[in-house]
């Protein structure tokens, strides 16, 4: 793809637009380089204001009283003693906020404070606002709550039996929140015909985001009655909708400002109880109210990785080609819906985008359990199936006597093709990714040849660059950007995007600066303020670079065109010969003939009036139109491949990762340093998931979290972090801004299976469960089958499977009419 194709705009090309295309063909000034990010100086001086850094005069502090039982009816709450405590200004219970909310329209199952039932230890039942945090905390101990205990359920295999009172009064049946089954092509026939059939079960443990910043929110009622909320949220737009709904206020009277997040990883993408509660407390007391969760509360808020029990039945021909795949998942959803319906679909959506799988069936079930709710964590629903799939590839390679790298390279999903489940692939750089890590690591010389106890493993993956559909059905853009040019040459950029550390402010500024030819320091970004900035749906699904970038390009091109029209006249140069660079506008054929950008803006303003433009982005339509087709489509897919070298101590079972080689198909870097930072951060987080991180509870003690602290919940420190060699593969995608694709989530995915495969290479055991703890390694070493595997998957009770013809079978992306309406929104 040439750079010019990246410039968006449907209108016929004007000479000015031609000029821009020409400019971009000449090479980028900023794109792909590594200038300091726009918020870099603020971050290193401590000047960045995170939510808990804010305070207002007369501010009150709030605390939540959380349930200490897992499942119970709420009989009575007596708050009188708390109210009488000096310094307490307001006490709130569920009665005050009867309206339910939730991130997905199909799961509006939460209340700001519980009303009828509590569903997990940590479910909030009351809130206090007091003059200081200690008084609020003390007041909690004066609130009397009477519970009528109900049987809890902690395991999906139990929940699916439906033997207890259902946790919710909605869902597919009893404690089954969601059950899906779909088949593309004839899987049974494909598996029958295979020369090698693999059928194994896997378990991927739940783990949590653990952002270093604890969630915090400050709410304030303005004198005219409007509510402003500053919060550590990744999704200000969805918080805006949820808060307005629960408070019963017009969205025009609620303003959400997302503060820079001190890490998100998906953990701040749901609207949370505490955010809505402080808004209500601010309204009732007419004073600013702040809450900052304790670290323990952050563990209980969770919304992290679903524990998933899986079965992967996969057929291969002798020559290594995959014949078909039947993939089953059972998700432990925890106590609420959260993103869970989307998560369920995601455990089945992206198996098809790396290697050609001609026939594919997916059965997935999500159950409710009385534990903290699971939701989206970096990789949302895809690390679990990817773990199983990549281990099966390794098994098949060994059984068929084919190098695992070659087994993958022989059947890559073609670029610009359509998968069995109707996902349209764009650019596809997995081949070069595999080649780079294979070469860099010395894979061919090392695999199977390292001394016992040392091993090397390979795995690949892919991820979406933004969900193709919004969370609630609407036809509006997913991202908007407005621009205002100042006479002095400054450019103000407004966008709803939220910087959670990934560098989205910098991506936004870089796209604008590239096109207008100004410096990053000439750009002032105003982000994530629902009163001031056009909607961007939020920092989730790796959507920001692609969608915000495209919207920014469109807004900047429009501004450039206005300025170019006037400048062309002033300079007597045709518009298509104008170049915007180094803060100047000049003739490409005679660079001395030009004016400064600020002069050009001033002249254009004199001619056209105030220069302000807007740009927006809507993803292209998706070819799949069957029930459930809403999850998986994306404007583009990123690809990653990783090789890891490990050391396994057979005495202790301890696995040490010594070195990682990882290649990522980025399309085109916007800021290379930030891209590599995301890759390294993903490797780090994948390492934690693979080896140590787990959310575990005590079923005999009401399901309390075993280790809700930073010390006990093991995460990698400097001492566990291995050397990482990163390769970037540049294969611009026609849908990406300047060809760019995502990097925030994809590179995490290959880590866990690569480590599992390396453990096998080292000591010949298969640990088909995460985390790969010393106990599990030892257990596998002791067993005759040299394997550590989960208990058998219970019957998922799939009764009806939607059958969709693949493209090869002559399908058109729809499912045959089942007589059932397909109005349900399954969008993530």
């Amino acid at each position, binding site marked *: 793809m040439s750079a010019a194709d990246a410039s968006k705009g449907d209108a016929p090309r004007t000479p000015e637009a031609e000029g821009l295309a020409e400019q971009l063909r000449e090479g980028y000034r900023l794109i792909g380089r*590594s200038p*300091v*990010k726009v*918020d*870099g*100086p*603020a*971050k*290193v*001086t*401590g000047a*960045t*204001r995170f939510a808990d*850094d804010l305070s207002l005069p007369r501010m009150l502090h709030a605390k939540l009283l959380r349930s200490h039982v897992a499942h119970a009816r709420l009989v009575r709450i007596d708050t009188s003693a*708390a*109210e*009488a*405590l*000096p*310094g*307490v*200004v*307001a*006490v709130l*219970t569920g009665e*005050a906020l009867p309206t339910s909310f939730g991130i997905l329209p199909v799961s509006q199952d939460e209340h700001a404070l519980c009303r009828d039932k509590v569903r997990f230890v940590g479910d909030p039942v009351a809130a206090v606002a007091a*003059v200081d945090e200690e*008084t609020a905390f003390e007041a909690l101990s004066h609130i009397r709550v009477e519970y009528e205990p109900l049987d809890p359920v902690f395991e999906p295999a139990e929940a699916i039996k439906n033997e207890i009172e259902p946790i919710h009064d909605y869902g597919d049946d009893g404690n089954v929140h969601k059950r899906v089954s779909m088949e593309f092509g004839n899987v049974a026939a494909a598996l029958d015909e295979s020369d090698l059939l693999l059928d194994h079960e896997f378990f991927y443990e739940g783990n949590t*985001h*653990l*952002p*270093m*910043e*604890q969630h915090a929110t400050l709410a304030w009622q303005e004198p005219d009655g409007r509510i402003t909320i500053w919060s550590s949220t990744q999704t200000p737009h969805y918080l805006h909708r949820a808060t307005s709904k629960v408070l019963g206020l017009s969205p025009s009277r609620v303003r959400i400002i997302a503060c*820079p*997040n*001190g*890490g998100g990883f998906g953990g701040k993408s749901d609207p949370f109880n505490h955010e809505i509660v402080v808004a209500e407390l601010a309204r*009732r*007391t007419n004073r600013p109210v702040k809450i900052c969760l*304790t*670290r323990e509360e952050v563990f209980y808020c969770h919304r992290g990785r679903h524990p998933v029990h899986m079965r992967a039945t996969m057929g291969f021909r002798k020559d290594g080609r995959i014949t078909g795949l039947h993939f089953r998942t059972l998700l432990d959803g925890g106590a609420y819906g959260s993103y869970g319906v989307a998560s369920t679909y995601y455990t089945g959506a992206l198996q098809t985008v790396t290697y050609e799988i001609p026939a594919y069936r997916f059965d997935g079930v999500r159950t409710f359990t009385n534990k903290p709710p699971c939701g989206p964590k970096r990789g949302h629903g895809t690390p679990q199936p990817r773990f199983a799939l990549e281990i099966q590839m390794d098994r098949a390679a060994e059984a068929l006597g084919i190098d695992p790298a070659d087994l993958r390279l022989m059947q890559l999903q073609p670029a610009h093709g359509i998968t069995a489940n109707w996902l349209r692939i764009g650019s596809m750089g997995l081949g070069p990714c595999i080649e780079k890590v294979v070469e860099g690591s010395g894979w061919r010389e090392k695999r199977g040849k390292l001394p016992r106890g040392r091993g090397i493993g390979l795995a690949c993956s892919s991820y979406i660059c933004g969900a193709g559909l919004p969370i609630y059905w609407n036809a509006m853009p997913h991202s908007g950007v407005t621009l205002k040019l100042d006479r002095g040459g400054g450019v103000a950029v407004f966008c709803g995007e939220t910087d959670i*550390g*990934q*560098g989205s402010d910098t991506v936004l500024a870089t796209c604008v600066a590239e096109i207008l030819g100004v410096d990053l320091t000439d750009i002032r970004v105003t982000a994530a303020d629902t009163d001031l900035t056009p909607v961007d749906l939020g920092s989730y699904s790796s959507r920001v670079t692609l969608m915000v970038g495209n919207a920014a390009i469109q807004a900047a091109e429009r501004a450039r065109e206005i300025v170019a029209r006037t400048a062309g006249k002033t300079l007597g140069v045709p518009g298509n010969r104008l170049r915007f660079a180094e803060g100047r506008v000049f003739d490409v054929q005679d660079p001395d003939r030009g004016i400064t950008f600020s002069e050009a803006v001033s002249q254009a303003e004199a001619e056209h009036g105030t220069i302000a433009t807007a740009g927006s982005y809507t993803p292209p339509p998706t070819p799949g139109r069957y029930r459930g087709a809403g999850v998986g489509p994306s404007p583009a897919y990123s690809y990653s491949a990783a090789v890891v070298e490990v050391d396994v101590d057979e005495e202790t079972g301890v696995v040490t990762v010594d070195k990682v080689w990882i290649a990522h198909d980025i399309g085109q870097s916007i800021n290379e*340093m*930030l891209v590599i*930072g995301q890759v*390294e*951060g993903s490797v*780090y*987080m994948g390492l934690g998931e693979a080896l140590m991180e787990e959310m575990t509870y005590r079923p005999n003690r009401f399901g309390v979290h075993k280790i809700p*602290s*930073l*010390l006990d919940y093991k*995460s990698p*420190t*400097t001492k566990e*972090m291995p050397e*990482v060699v990163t390769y970037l593969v540049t294969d611009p995608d026609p849908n990406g801004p300047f060809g760019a694709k995502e990097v925030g989530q994809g590179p995490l995915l290959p880590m866990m299976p690569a480590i599992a495969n390396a453990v096998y290479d080292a000591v010949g055991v298969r640990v088909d469960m995460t985390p790969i703890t010393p106990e599990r390694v030892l257990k596998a070493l002791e067993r005759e089958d040299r394997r550590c595997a989960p208990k058998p998957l219970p019957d998922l009770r799939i009764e009806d499977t939607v059958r969709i013809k693949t493209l090869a079978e002559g399908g058109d992306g729809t499912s045959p009419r089942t007589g059932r309406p397909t109005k349900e929104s399954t969008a993530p």
Partner: protein
Amino acid sequence: MTVASEDGARPTADDPRRKAHVILRVNGEDHEVAFLPHKTLLEVLREDMGLTGTKHGCELGECGTCTVLVDGEPQLSCLLLGLQSVGRDIETVEGMAGADGLHPLQQAFAELGAAQCGYCTPGFLLTAEALLRNDPQPSRERIVEELSGNLCRCTGYLKIYEAVEQAAAARTAPGAGR
């Protein structure tokens, strides 16, 4: 909901919790501060002095995020009382940049992308600063060791090591100001 008491109606005359009135030396300047005696240095800095550059991730001594320098040594400000800090030399991230711009560590962290969300950054900067004062040219192993009490969830630490090394090189380069 009920409004339980008059606004801020905390008993005062017989309240045992009287504020301590002390002088704290922070970033080379003496500050008169009044705070409740049980408050941690972290709370005093953030709440009573408005120095919110020092962050917290646990307030239990487990993450290193709240690290400041006390008499030149890295200390977890969430585990230290404000009162214990009287008469000692406290350094926070706000004191690092001077009139001539960013401190070499800050410069290196910004240039190399060692601060992603930036939340852990002040703690890392001060821990690294203490290291470089004791060992101007630390080995990679030493850096890994000294920073092992600070958690970062974004970067995977590698850019942080590189930034410390770059700052060490800049500091000892001929003609380096600091």
